[in-house]
């Protein structure tokens, strides 16, 4: 996919992998939605757009939205008010591509069976968005576009709908373009990240990589974190813990229902990592891993600085006060111990 456009000062040129969740990330007003709408064909900008071998826009040719094999989940509730939930789903089903999933399958996936006869104005915001996602899936898209589907919801509703999105992102084999300005959602859902700033692509690459480079979170903010992939290696029934191994160490985390051998995505916030010079066993902290310091952020924000730590092939970030760094005499290349206070399994 290539897209150089210049309307609305949007200048983006990139190609995206076809089998992954790509988050289009950036502050509001950076052109995320405009970009997505141009890809959908809802809006026109000058440029070229190819989907695989199919030309969607080139020169004067522009494939109209209803001919593009996409589905679109809008930011706010977009259900047809004159149709029930079932009616909304059937609207998509009647116009679906041959490879579209069965109604029952999608209704199950998004847990909609009890809502089928409801009218859109009888649903909560979260329920409406679930129906909208189901409707989008039912059309049988080859590309799923989602424009901040959670932004209109409060935290509780977000928490209610995120698991569905995670299942969807993991289970579906259609590429997803997910517009968001939430670091949290991006960490949980995305594999690849496209960062927009003032209509320009500022960064583009694997999500873990960009997270590590701290380009997506404001330096010094609580969002600064590392994401790593690990496999469930062992389950300790007695203490309800699971050991997750990665190339460079293993971490004990609270065990919920992760299957033995399954791959999980872990998010470790920089503010939850502290450093000690020796591995003393007299601490309540469960996870203490040997590592080496590979970088210390030079742009000191207030009292805090961020350290990059190497553990095998994986990296972590630690946010420390400048005073502590000075006190411990931390420098690049030093071997230290990372004390990890909390690990979140995000997938």
């Amino acid at each position: 996919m290539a897209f150089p456009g210049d309307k609305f000062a949007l200048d983006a040129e990139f190609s995206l992998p076809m089998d992954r969740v790509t988050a289009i990330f950036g502050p509001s007003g950076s052109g995320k939605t405009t970009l997505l709408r141009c890809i959908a064909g809802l809006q026109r900008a000058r440029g070229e757009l190819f989907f695989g071998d199919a030309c969607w826009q080139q020169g004067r040719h522009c494939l109209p939205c209803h001919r593009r094999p996409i589905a679109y989940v809008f930011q706010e509730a977009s259900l047809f008010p004159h149709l029930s939930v079932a009616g909304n789903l059937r609207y998509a089903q009647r116009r679906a591509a041959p490879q579209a999933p069965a109604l029952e399958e999608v209704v199950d996936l998004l847990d909609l069976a009890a809502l089928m006869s409801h009218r859109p104005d009888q649903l909560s915001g979260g329920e409406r968005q679930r129906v909208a996602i189901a409707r989008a899936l039912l059309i049988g898209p080859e590309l799923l576009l989602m424009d901040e589907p959670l932004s209109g919801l409060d935290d509780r509703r977000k928490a209610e709908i995120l698991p569905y999105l995670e299942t969807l992102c993991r289970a579906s084999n259609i590429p997803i373009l997910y517009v968001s300005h939430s670091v949290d959602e991006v960490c949980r859902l995305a594999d690849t990240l496209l960062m927009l700033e003032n209509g320009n692509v500022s960064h583009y690459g694997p999500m873990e990589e960009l997270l590590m480079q701290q380009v997506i979170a404001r330096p010094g903010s609580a969002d600064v974190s590392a994401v790593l992939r690990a496999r469930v290696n062992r389950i300790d029934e007695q203490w309800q813990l699971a050991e997750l191994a990665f190339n460079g160490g293993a971490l004990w985390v609270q065990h919920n229902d992760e299957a033995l051998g399954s791959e999980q995505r872990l998010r470790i916030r920089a503010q939850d990592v502290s450093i000690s010079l020796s591995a003393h066993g007299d601490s309540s902290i469960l996870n203490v891993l040997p590592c080496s310091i590979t970088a210390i952020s030079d742009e000191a924000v207030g009292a805090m600085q961020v350290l990059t730590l190497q553990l095998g092939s994986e990296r972590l970030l630690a946010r420390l006060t400048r005073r502590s760094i000075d006190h411990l005499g931390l420098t690049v290349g030093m071997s230290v111990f990372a004390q990890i206070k909390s690990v979140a399994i995000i997938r």
Partner: protein
Amino acid sequence: MMGFDSQDMTALLLTLKLALVVTVLLLVISTPLAWWLSRSCSWLRAPVAALITLPLILPPTVLGFYLLLAMGPEGPIGYLSERLGIGSLAFSFTGLVIGSLFYSLPFVVQPIQNAMESMGERPFEVAATLRAGPIDRFFTVLLPLCRTGFITAAVLGFAHTLGEFGVVLMIGGNIPGETQVLSVQLYEHVEALDYPRAHRLAALMLALSFITMLLLHGLRSGKRSAKVLGF
């Protein structure tokens, strides 16, 4: 029936026929017009909107006068109808229909336009992302979502054409069975000082108008209470 003589009955039937024909034609004409007015950003939008709404404030006789000139042998409509072999449209039912189209246009365009504006762009975009083409979108999204607007437009267009007088008098005259509508017939009776017959016609029109408005307001409040109930 109720003491109407055959001439009054003819006038009543002619009036209903005129209102029906005009309403159907206006719904067809107004839908694309209202769509364009609700979506266009062109500089032409304001002048066109002004032209369409002009009959709201223009004395009907002024409109009738210009239409009469246009339909005359020297006018563009007259020229066209002569060339097509229809003859002059002035003082004919067809001429009356044309006059009424202009006269009632704003009453039909505006409710439809308002409905389309309040619907917004989003339902249309949603339908497009669900593979619905333009015609599909018109029937499955626009018509159901703007239903109240269309019904209001039809009722207003019908009712307003029923009460037409000035335009009819200018371009239609007073030919029984061709252009003699209720309001003109009423005027005739008053001119002839035949007050009992005038009374009957006036009462009939009053009742018709009241029932029309009653239906319209019933429709609106029905819609409102339905919303409260969540339907």
